[in-house]
Structures are given as structure tokens and as C-alpha cells.
């Protein structure tokens, strides 16, 4: 049987990643396509179970993740009088590091990974909130590379920068419709290219005053 083109949108729909228009289009399709509805229901169930029962389902996988963070503790261990046992402590330490209090450590420690739970969406504050022709966020420290993403319902544009601000090229501005909503997001990478933080996606409406 041929795959329905809406099938690819199921996960994005369930995670609430579609724009209002796309979401409604998708939902209307569900009301007209029993197969996609079945699939969406099953997928929804799977995601709920995965989220709800993660502790038992992913026991072994979590151990692996933990052992990775233990390696991290060893690396960062010398910085603290006591061993770092909780993810919170690890996160706090990493925040200190990325905020540049101990900037030299970054060069020495290629193992610069942070557990996603701790830092995702927390440490980057988006400063520009509406109508930005320039996007700005709080810098995390030196030697950090940022990647900026602009989405409509899909990724519209992405660009890397070492600054804590960026402006949109005219070519992209021309592609954006005034009054329409878009969202943007910033991810921070260490000098070794490891993701250390990701902001949440923030919505904005494009108003071109030119």
C-alpha cells in the first residue's frame, strides 16, 4: 500500500510542532483518512507509554547514559570538593563553565556534554521577543558557537554565528509573510561542536516595516 503524504506529519502533530494552519489541515485529513487516524492513535499511545513508563522501559539505556555522565564527573571532578552526584549539580557546574567563570577548562575538556534534561531550554534567554529584524540572546561565554533556526511550519533558515545576535538576510525576509507567525530557536555548541544548550522555540510575528 502506498504511504499517505500526511503520515510524515504524525509525530510533529503529536508533539505540537505544527503551525495552527498545518495542524488544522492535518486534523481535517484525519477525519477523512481512517488509516492515518489509526496510525496517529497508535503513535499517540506509544508516545504516552514511552513518557509514562520510561523508568522501566529504558532502565538499561539510562544506565548507559548515566555511565556517560559519570565519565563527565570524573573529568569535572577536580573542580569540586565532593563528587558530583546529581544531574542538577552537573548542570550547575556546566553553567558556571559556560558562563565563562572558568573559561580555560573548555579547551582542556573535549567531553563537554550536558544531560539534556538539565539544560535544554533553560540557560539561553531570548531577548528579542517580537518584530525583530535582529535576534539577540544572552551570550553563554567565549568560544561558543550558536546556531539560529527560523521556522514557519518547517525549518526556514539556519545559520551559525559566534556572536549573540544575528540579522536576517534580505533573501529570507523576502520569503516571510507579514502578519504571519514564525518561531525561532538558538542552540549553543562548544568549540568542539557538541550541543550544550538549546532554547525553547519562541514565536514571533513578522512585521516588515519597510
Amino acid at each position, binding site marked *: 500500500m502506498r504511504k499517505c503524504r500526511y503520515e510524515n506529519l504524525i509525530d510533529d502533530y503529536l508533539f505540537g510542532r505544527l503551525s495552527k494552519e498545518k495542524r488544522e489541515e492535518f486534523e481535517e485529513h484525519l477525519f477523512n483518512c481512517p488509516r492515518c487516524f489509526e496510525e496517529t*492513535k497508535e503513535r499517540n499511545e506509544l508516545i504516552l507509554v514511552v513518557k509514562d*513508563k*520510561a523508568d522501566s522501559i*529504558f532502565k538499561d539505556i539510562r544506565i548507559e547514559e548515566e555511565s556517560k555522565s559519570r565519565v563527565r564527573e570524573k573529568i569535572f571532578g577536580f573542580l569540586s570538593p565532593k563528587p558530583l552526584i546529581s544531574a542538577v549539580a552537573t548542570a550547575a557546574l556546566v553553567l558556571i563553565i559556560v558562563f565563562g567563570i572558568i573559561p580555560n577548562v573548555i579547551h582542556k575538556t573535549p567531553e563537554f556534554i550536558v544531560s539534556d534534561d538539565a539544560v535544554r531550554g533553560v540557560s539561553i534567554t531570548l531577548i528579542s521577543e517580537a518584530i525583530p529584524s535582529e535576534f539577540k540572546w544572552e551570550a553563554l561565554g567565549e568560544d561558543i558557537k550558536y546556531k539560529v533556526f527560523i521556522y514557519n511550519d518547517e525549518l526556514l533558515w539556519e545559520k551559525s554565528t559566534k556572536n549573540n545576535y544575528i540579522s536576517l538576510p534580505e533573501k529570507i525576509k523576502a520569503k516571510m509573510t507579514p502578519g504571519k507567525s514564525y518561531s525561532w530557536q538558538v542552540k549553543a555548541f562548544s568549540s568542539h561542536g557538541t550541543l550544550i544548550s538549546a532554547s525553547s522555540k519562541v514565536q514571533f510575528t513578522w512585521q516588515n516595516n519597510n
Partner: protein
Amino acid sequence: MKKKDNSYDLEKITAEYRPLVTFKVKKSIGAHTPEWEDIVNEIMLNAIEKIKSGQFKGESSVGTFIYTITRRRIVDYIRRKKKIATKYLPDSDPFPDPHEQIEDKERAELLAKKLEELKPKYKTILYLYYYKDLSRKEVAKRLGISPRNVSERVHYAQKLLKKLMKK
């Protein structure tokens, strides 16, 4: 959807669309909201009534027709609720519902067990993709495989689970 005499088979319509309306209503207003069932009933009654009385003339499919009624009713519900408690409600319909829980507890247990039995390769991918909510690209980077490979593996894991659940 139609009977031999060209009238709509209302029983069939109810049987087919009630689950859809229920799904959408619960997702939008939250399964923990006690009113969801009343709203579903209301929507279904309204739709059937309109079909019966000939107000639905077949300009669109039955599915689209019922979806439109459903969406309007939800918007209406949220608007009314907002007037009562403007402070606490978001301005669009809250989606997805963070408090949603699987209804069939036994099925959930079984699914969890089957998930546990999967090979680590598939578990890892479901963990990162569905639990950690990472994008395909991010998962690909973490595992050193291509984004396409991520999709394939997720898809395969789902197929495997479906098979295991049917056993």
C-alpha cells in the same frame, strides 16, 4: 456512508466519527477536563441533526463537515472558559495535552513490556526520539547515523511493536 435509498447511514457515521471527535476534543481541551464527554455528545448530536434535517448538503465530505463542527465547538468552549478565568488559560487551544494518559491501562502495561523487550538499538532510538523529544537531526548526530536512518529505525521499531502487540 449512504444507505441504498441514498439517505445517510447515521449509525455508521456515529460509529466511525465518534472516536475521531473524542480524540480531537480530548487533545484540545485536555482529557482531565470533565466536560469532554458532554462536548463530544453535543458535537455528534449536532452533526447528526444537521445531516438528518438536510442542512448538510454534501458540499464537503462528511469527515470535513464533522471536523468543522468539532473545531468550532472547541473554540467556543475555550472562549467561554477564558472569559471566566482569563488569567490561567493560554490564548489558543492548549496542545498537546500534557496530562493525557493512556486509558486502557492493561494495554499500556503490555506495550511497556514489549518495549522493554526490544533490542537496545531500537530502544535507544525511541528513547532519544520520543522520550527526549530530540529532532531527527539531533538523534542522528548523537548516534552517528544519518537522519534518514533515524526515520527508518523508528519506523522499524514501530512495526516490530505492532507485530508484538498482535501476538
